């Protein structure tokens, strides 16, 4: 095969068996890779009712046919499993260099089944793969584990590891690769921990075989040239200021979530945005494999109570650990981010869960003695932010409750309405009252609230590939359907959304993936039409929905908290708005070919080869 390696590594953790299985060419064509291969595996091999932390839940790490190729941002992989945070699916995506190394080692995907009797790690050196004892690594943080692994295996190995949070079962524990890159959301790290799998280290020495190498090369040159030309008269915002530059867009439109979504404008926004980060703490911009953007942030806090060094924060973190907690101290936000990276946790769910605790504390629902800081927990408490983050990653004191995520925390105190979640997963950094399409995207995403499974913020707030009105809702169902489908293609091909939405799709709301088609055909030698790719995206999205349906999910789970659908935004540009979810859902289900309860109809599934 070309583009694909044609091989999947199956690791049976319970008895230590490792086997190589061929990638079925038809499955590859229909499901592309990454996210598509992941859901196909889960549908075929995992009972949808399985407890996510049970040995019977599989964890799939899957690359795409463009991962590890010179295609701009061919850097990504996807981690798919059943989520211990939501009971729904995970689609946790990361870049860095580990995914490309996996591909260069000759593997499209690795499937982990069962549970190891004691801590182990997987060492992949090209064709050869072995499980090794990891008892001595258990309990170590992310950078220490990365150091130890490269010492024990190969100095040039790339690693994906869990920290103490994943070992202890923090429900939003991440898998960290290349130390600072996170397959962050939905608790994939806790699934690894439950499997007694500490890490994967890989050395890839080969190259991805391309069907039409010359054509591929000239396509790549064309995309790089187009990218450079579009920034000929100014800097690339993401490279210059990092993703935290997005604060400008969300604050302008009044959707920058503040104090647990009590409002959408944050007075201290300029203290924590991309410009502040660049001016105060940026050491250097960092790029994932084959990426011309380099949005990663190598940062350093030189002094003060939050001194430290590492990577981040991203926009989502600036929202979750910053404005959502009412904290405008960028050093504290950055330090809390470092702790999440060290201990292996999702910064979004961490911050949003602390924000939920802060609101319940201010309302007198959580007694100060429960939190145990020796003072009231209030919004804006930078020191509490950092302390609670560390306590969560180490499962100490009140951190044990925070480690359950905001919904379980709020339910514990009898007030689930204060959890800003969909399907039990914390919101990303966009308030759906001022961004209607995002509300529909959160509610219908297969992983619970997420901005990355069909991200309308681009077209509603950020002018990519064009700008539309974020406050209208009648036009959004069709846009969300199309965007969700094409994001399935981006996620499955192994590309980064940040580059794709501006360079690989048509510059309008139809988001047709012309550029991805050209690259995929040159890489694989297949002859996808644009429509076939969109259909593949639709297939993947429906396959995920099918899995959720079998696990008992339906319309009642496609929901948003009462605050978002019935409490008008109190101030700012989106003042007076609520999210019109129900109206959008009816139209959305019709467009999807799902019934009024959100269950896919048999005819549609059959057309997609899913029934």
């Amino acid at each position, binding site marked *: 095969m070309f583009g694909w390696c044609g091989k999947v590594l199956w690791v049976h953790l319970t008895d230590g068996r490792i086997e190589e299985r061929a990638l079925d060419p038809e499955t590859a064509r229909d499901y592309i890779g990454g996210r598509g291969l992941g859901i196909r595996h889960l549908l075929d091999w995992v009972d949808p009712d399985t407890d996510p932390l049970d040995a019977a839940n599989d964890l799939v790490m899957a690359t795409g046919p463009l991962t590890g190729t010179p295609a701009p941002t061919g850097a990504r992989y996807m981690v798919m499993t059943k989520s211990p945070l939501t009971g729904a699916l995970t689609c946790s995506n990361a870049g860095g260099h580990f995914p490309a190394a996996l591909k260069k080692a000759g593997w499209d995907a690795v499937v982990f089944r069962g549970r190891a009797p004691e801590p182990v790690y997987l060492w992949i050196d090209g064709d050869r793969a072995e499980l090794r004892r990891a008892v001595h690594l258990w309990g170590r943080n992310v950078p220490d584990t990365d150091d130890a692994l490269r010492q024990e295996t190969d100095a040039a190995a790339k690693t994906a590891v869990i920290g103490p949070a994943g070992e202890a079962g923090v429900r939003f524990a991440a898998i960290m690769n290349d130390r600072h890159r996170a397959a962050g959301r939905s608790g994939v790290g806790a699934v690894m921990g439950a499997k007694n799998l500490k890490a994967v280290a890989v050395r890839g020495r080969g190259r991805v075989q391309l069907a039409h190498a010359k054509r591929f090369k000239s396509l790549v040159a064309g995309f790089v040239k187009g990218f450079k030309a579009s920034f000929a008269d100014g800097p690339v*915002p993401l490279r210059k200021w990092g993703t935290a530059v*997005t604060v*400008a867009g969300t604050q*302008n*439109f009044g959707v920058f979530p503040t104090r647990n979504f009590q409002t959408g404008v944050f007075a201290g926004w300029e203290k924590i945005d991309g410009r502040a980060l660049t001016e105060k703490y940026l050491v250097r911009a960092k790029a994932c494999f084959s990426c011309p953007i380099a949005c990663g942030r190598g940062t350093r806090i030189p002094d003060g109570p939050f001194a430290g060094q590492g990577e981040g924060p991203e*926009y989502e973190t600036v929202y979750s650990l910053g404005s959502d907690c009412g904290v405008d101290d960028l050093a504290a936000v950055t330090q809390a981010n470092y702790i999440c990276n060290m201990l292996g946790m999702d910064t979004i769910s961490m911050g949003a869960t602390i924000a939920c605790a802060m609101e319940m504390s201010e309302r007198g629902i959580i007694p100060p003695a429960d939190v145990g800081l020796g003072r009231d927990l209030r919004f804006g408490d930078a020191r509490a932010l950092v302390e609670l983050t560390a306590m969560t990653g180490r499962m100490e004191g009140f951190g044990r409750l925070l480690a359950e995520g905001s919904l379980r925390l709020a339910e514990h105190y009898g007030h689930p309405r204060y959890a800003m979640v969909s399907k039990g997963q914390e919101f990303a950094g966009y308030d759906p009252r001022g961004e209607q399409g995002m509300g529909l995207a959160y509610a219908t995403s297969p992983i619970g609230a997420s901005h990355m499974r069909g991200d309308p913020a681009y077209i509603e707030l*950020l*002018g*990519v590939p064009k700008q539309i009105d974020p*406050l209208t809702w009648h036009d959004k169902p069709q846009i969300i359907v199309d965007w969700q489908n094409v994001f399935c293609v981006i996620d499955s091909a192994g590309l980064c959304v940040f580059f794709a939405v501006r360079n690989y799709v048509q510059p309008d709301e139809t988001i047709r993936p012309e550029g991805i088609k050209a690259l995929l055909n040159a890489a694989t030698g297949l002859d996808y039409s644009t429509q076939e790719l969109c259909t593949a995206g639709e297939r993947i999205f429906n396959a995920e929905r099918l899995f959720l349906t079998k696990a008992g999910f339906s319309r009642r789970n496609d929901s948003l908290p009462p605050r978002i659908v019935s409490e008008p935004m109190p101030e700012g540009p989106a003042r007076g708005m609520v999210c019109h979810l129900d109206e959008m859902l009816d139209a959305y289900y019709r467009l999807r070919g799902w019934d009024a309860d959100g269950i896919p109809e048999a005819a549609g599934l059959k057309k997609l080869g899913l029934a």
Partner: protein
Amino acid sequence: MRIHVKLQLTFEDRAPAGRNPFDLELTPGATVARALEALAIPVSTPKVIMVNGRAATPDRKLAPGDELTVFPPIEGG
């Protein structure tokens, strides 16, 4: 008529030195396109335009006291 203008990020250098936000004098009934022209921002340069907190297009007619915000497209968050 006078409008208020805020230029952000890559457009900051089009603002009068040391002032941003700032006021801009336009003939009554001028459009956003006219304001952009006065600011030497080509209509073809990709950008997000807002008037009074709502997304707007270049053909939008401006009224006295309107607040015009311009920032570049941002590829991610």
